[in-house]
């Protein structure tokens, strides 16, 4: 039974690749195919340094700031 899957910062790009995403020159998450920015639930661009993960809901990209984190936890509860 699989409990959880986590990744270290060192493997963030590997995870993104699994979802056909990559990062642009400035370090923001983009679609590999179109180059469009990947957006958080609040419609913000996500920098690789603040990439918190991916959740269900047709792939929700999580930012690691306190507001996004609390929103994620409360929605899971």
């Amino acid at each position, binding site marked *: *039974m*699989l409990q*959880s899957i*986590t990744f*270290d910062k060192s*493997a*963030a790009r590997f995870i993104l690749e699994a979802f056909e995403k990559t990062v642009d020159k400035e370090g923001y998450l983009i679609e590999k195919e179109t180059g469009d920015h990947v957006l958080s639930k609040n419609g913000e661009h996500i920098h690789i340094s603040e990439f918190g993960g991916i959740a*269900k809901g047709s792939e929700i990209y999580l930012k690691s700031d*306190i*507001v996004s984190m609390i929103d994620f936890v409360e929605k899971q509860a």
Partner: protein
Amino acid sequence: MSLGDFLKGLFKDNKLVFSPKINLSINIGSGNNKGNTIIYDKRKQLARIDVSQLSNGKKARLQKLLKPQLDTDTPLLDSEYKAKAEDYKEKIRQPDNQVLLNFFANILPQEDLNILRAALYIRTIFKEHHGDVTQLKSQLINQHGIRAANITNLCSAGYFESWIKPLYEEMNKKPGFKKENFLEIYEEIVRYSPFAFFVNRVMSDSEVVQHIMTKIERMKRYGIKTLNIHGIGHSNVAKVKNALEAIEKKIKFTKSILEEDNIIVTKLHFE
């Protein structure tokens, strides 16, 4: 091939025994295993995979297997993010925090409730570890503006327990009470909290005057010309009134007073 089968293969390659019955967590890193493809931490029931040690074929296979995991409600989380989320869950579930959040659940606007959750988390971190909470506060303010700063400061000073909750309870006793009446005063408290003084039971009349005078002097230095003074309970309402009489003898100001039973909100405007 399932993710379980893939792991089984990695375990086998590394001469490790894999039991599919155990509750297993996976951590994916790069260069994290001292040259091992996979390491199993028995105590944590955690399998650590080092993708830099995988062949290109295995990398591609693992990536393909990760995507369907979202459909099984298993989010893929940054390990630090997960640790923070678990820390938040543990701290916000503390009885004091839950009592306050449950009390305000159907009273405060949703945005303020979210800010209050974050403010309580920040307060708990600070109380327990005396940690640096500047970054968390900045993130909150970036998202919700100065309102978040005010709510966080009110929360840190314990005003939600010592002032805002009692204010609601006091107002709620009154026949015909409407939540909107409370929210009007609450809004005044939140919006003007940096320019406010809350009188409490342990302060003497002279201390109240002294605190208000100090606050007015400080605010004047920054060109701020308004101060709200709040009192709740008979003795505090009386202290506010006495203080106003004493301050009137020292400086010139105009005032507007909102007084209801045991509650007083006074707005002073001074030059």
